[in-house]
């Protein structure tokens, strides 16, 4: 053995997520959480205005109907869809569903999440329409 040689450390570039498509899509998926959080804040504000009374609530609804807020909602919906679809597609990685000695094919697990999504959406829509 010769003299000690110090190992070379390569720092990670801040642009690491631009070096590969998968890293980029991962960052997009993470970023969509921000839009989902933003939507929840708008939703909580709506509940707050509702508690303040009819006038405040209707003024808030009017604000939400402005063209700028409609665009914001379209962007938030797109982000929420991307978030949902990418996570649903990753479900089989986290869940190995077994029936006795046989494991359920990944496509069925993914299909199950979409089926639950559709069922929940139908249930929510029915409740809203029922109470109208």
């Amino acid at each position, binding site marked *: 053995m010769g003299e000690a040689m110090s190992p*070379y450390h390569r720092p990670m570039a801040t642009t690491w997520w631009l070096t590969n498509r*998968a890293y980029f899509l991962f960052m997009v998926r993470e970023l969509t959480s921000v839009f989902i959080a933003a939507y929840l804040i708008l939703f909580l504000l709506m509940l707050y205005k509702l508690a303040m009374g009819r006038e405040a609530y209707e003024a808030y609804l009017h604000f939400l109907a402005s063209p700028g807020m409609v665009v914001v909602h379209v962007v938030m919906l797109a982000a929420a869809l991307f978030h949902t679809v990418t996570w649903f597609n990753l479900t089989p*990685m*986290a869940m190995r569903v077994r029936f006795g000695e046989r494991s359920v094919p990944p496509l069925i697990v993914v299909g199950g999440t979409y089926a639950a999504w559709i069922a929940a959406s139908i249930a929510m829509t029915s409740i809203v329409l029922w109470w109208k």
Partner: protein
Amino acid sequence: MPAATMTLEIFRYRGEQDPTPVFQTYDVPYREDWVVLDAINYIKDEIDGTLSYRWSCRMGVCGSCGMMINGVPKLSCATFLKDYYPAPVRIEPLAHFPVERDLVIVLDDFMEKLTSIKPWIIREQEQPLSEGEYRQSPAELDRYKQFSMCINCMLCYSACPVYGMDNRFLGPAATALAQRYSMDSRDQGRSERQQIVAGDEGIWECTLVGECTVVCPAHVDPAGAIQQAKVSSTIDWFKSVLWPWGKR
């Protein structure tokens, strides 16, 4: 017609001569049946004997020859020149690890992590030899077999930006191997391993980029191992809260 050649740009670091690494360009004969490791062996034998790198089996079993090939962690013995020809290929040591020399990385960190998860079958009480072997059904084997295929090549660590940013993270292969033993019907050491696996630097650091599974040459699916460990660790937590008198 002159024989076809191919250019390799290789990361060189010889700390005792120069504290900054450089890329050195080599022209090697192009052969359709050559992998990157063949080209590097040609350089070592015919052009420049000072080039340092690790390799052993040449057939994807030993896990020694992992390198960054055009920025992607790959086994150089399983990466064909023809997939890049005629463009030059850039070869660097595995990302996120310190470089000892040229393409040789310092792998102590991975070795310590591997040891920390106790990759062997733990028994509360060893049964005497006269009792015979610990038996296992094919279905029980099937539960962990995929995770046992790991060849410790560390490509998954090089693909993991979480490990790149903070190397205290236990990382993909060590978690997959912890799962390999904890899911083994003959093992009784899961709670010991969980201290590390579900600890501060364990599975909860993972943000599921998923590239560890993509680059794995042995189809281990370490990202799956980590997510499944998260599910079972969550179940442990609910059990401890809802059923504190139950057996842990």
